């Protein structure tokens, strides 16, 4: 081609190809989902948090087990940071049973304090799974996970951290090429990871 076309023409073609490649790369890079919306209490000293208890999550998705599935994934992600210890979920469940707490949504600050004291945690994580499913995008099904988490200080019951994250779903690559990418569990792991890292930023 370079023998038939002048040098500047070759450079022009190459530069156009580079632009297209860059646009594709940007599109694919953006397929991982939206950045999480996060609140972090400006005055809270997070270095005090050594042990975290993850309470059962509200499940608003169609998968009956989604809440418990995401709870385990969040625990793994919290542990993987290497910064905090996480209370075994059996201990948390037992504390909830002993304190006769059945509705996590309706817990009072005093109840949070008692649960945290029972499992010796400085922070209690609650939240909900809004979606944990495969959504129809054109002709394909793309996994989508939406997760909202809140971290409450054990002493006061005050929200010191909150985040909401969506991963997967109708992404650029899914719409344009029908590429659904990772499995539902991998998307769930990414969502939990994206949510948890905001706690330690």
């Amino acid at each position, binding site marked *: 081609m370079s023998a038939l076309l002048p040098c500047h023409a070759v450079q022009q073609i190459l530069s156009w190809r580079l632009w297209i490649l860059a646009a594709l790369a940007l599109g694919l890079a953006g397929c991982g989902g939206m950045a999480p919306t996060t609140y972090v209490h400006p005055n809270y000293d997070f270095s005090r948090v050594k042990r975290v208890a993850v309470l059962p999550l509200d499940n608003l998705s169609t998968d009956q087990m989604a809440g418990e599935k995401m709870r385990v994934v969040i625990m*793994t992600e919290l542990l993987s940071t290497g910064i905090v210890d996480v209370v075994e979920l059996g201990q948390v469940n037992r504390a909830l049973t002993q304190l006769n707490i059945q509705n996590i949504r309706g817990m009072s600050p005093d109840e949070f304090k008692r649960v945290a004291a029972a499992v010796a945690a400085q922070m209690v994580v609650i939240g909900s799974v809004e979606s944990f499913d495969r959504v129809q995008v054109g002709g394909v099904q793309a996994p989508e996970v939406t997760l909202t988490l809140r971290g409450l200080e054990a002493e006061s019951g005050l929200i010191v951290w909150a985040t909401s994250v969506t991963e997967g779903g109708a992404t650029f690559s899914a719409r344009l090429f029908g590429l659904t990418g990772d499995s539902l569990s991998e998307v769930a792991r990414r969502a939990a990871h994206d949510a948890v890292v905001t706690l330690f930023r």
Partner: protein
Amino acid sequence: MVCSLRPVVWEVAMRILLLPYAIRHTLYAILAFAALYLLAGATPSEGGTRIAVLPFLNVSGDLQGPAFVVPLVGPALRDRGYEVVEPEALEGFLARRRVRAPSRLGPEQLLLLGREFGADFALLGSVDLFADVAGNPQVGVSCRLLEMATGRLAWANAAGFTGDDFTGFMGLGTVTAAEVLAARTVTALFQAFPREGLQPEAAGPPPRSRSLARRVFRSPRLASGPPPRLAVLPFENATERRGAGLVVDDLMLVGLVRAGRFTVADAGVVQQSLLALGVAPYGAIDLETLRAIGQTAGVEAVILGRVTDYNEGLRPGTSSSPSIAIEVRMLDTQSGEILWMGAHEARGEDSQIVLEFGKIKSMVPLGMKVISELVGTL
């Protein structure tokens, strides 16, 4: 010295030549037999090792399963030079001792069994999958060998096939008869079983999955300290398939034993501890119970978890390919600290290369793959 021996050897040879024909050739036959025996690499043993085969637990959901599989176990062991006590011979003992779960024998029961039948080992197992589907049967079995005197898990393995696994060129070779498939499964199960007098070979390090390592938490304590003595607690079954938790319990034991790095308490020890404590942890556990189990079972850590997907591809309306998903964690029995935690899932077609090549069609090998990869992250 060699020179002084030479005339003696010569004289013995001459005297043998002078013996009558019949005696001389009998001597030759004995010498030849001894030479062949030594060349074969076997050493004479004082009474063969005796293995008691316990009735297998049936978690396949099909009542016929054990009848197809268990009768094949005895001959497979005899082929390897062992003496076998068949399950039928143990029925009286099990009834007398009121043993309801022969695949979960405690250390005391094992000792008594060993004494009564003069057995050195007990083979315990379960039929995890049996489906006599027309044209494509499925069989899956797991079993483990326990030393009677110590209760040590000496060997464990699992195997499973579908009739389609043997389909070759132009669709030939498919096994359509359940009894043939059961025989092939038992053959595969005992392929790595050591011959009488030999030690079991190490299964080699479990496979490592880089993508899985990202999804698993592993405490730095596991890397620094010696591997803890482990027990596998009952997995929670969050699927519609009855017995899925039991199958995963067994496969996890097999995975850990095959990894060779850990000392694992048998399921019978765990069962006895839970019965003694009157507790039934199911997928989760509190610190008090955890400590008590650690003391009674003599273990430093326990593994527990949940089965969130278990589809053998047999239910009408579901994918014909198997799929499995499990969550697992290891807890320190003293502190309750989470030492290892992760989740893994797989579908039969995940390993498919082209056409049907590489596809895992049966649940037991797929479950073993998932568990081996998880154990590999340890």
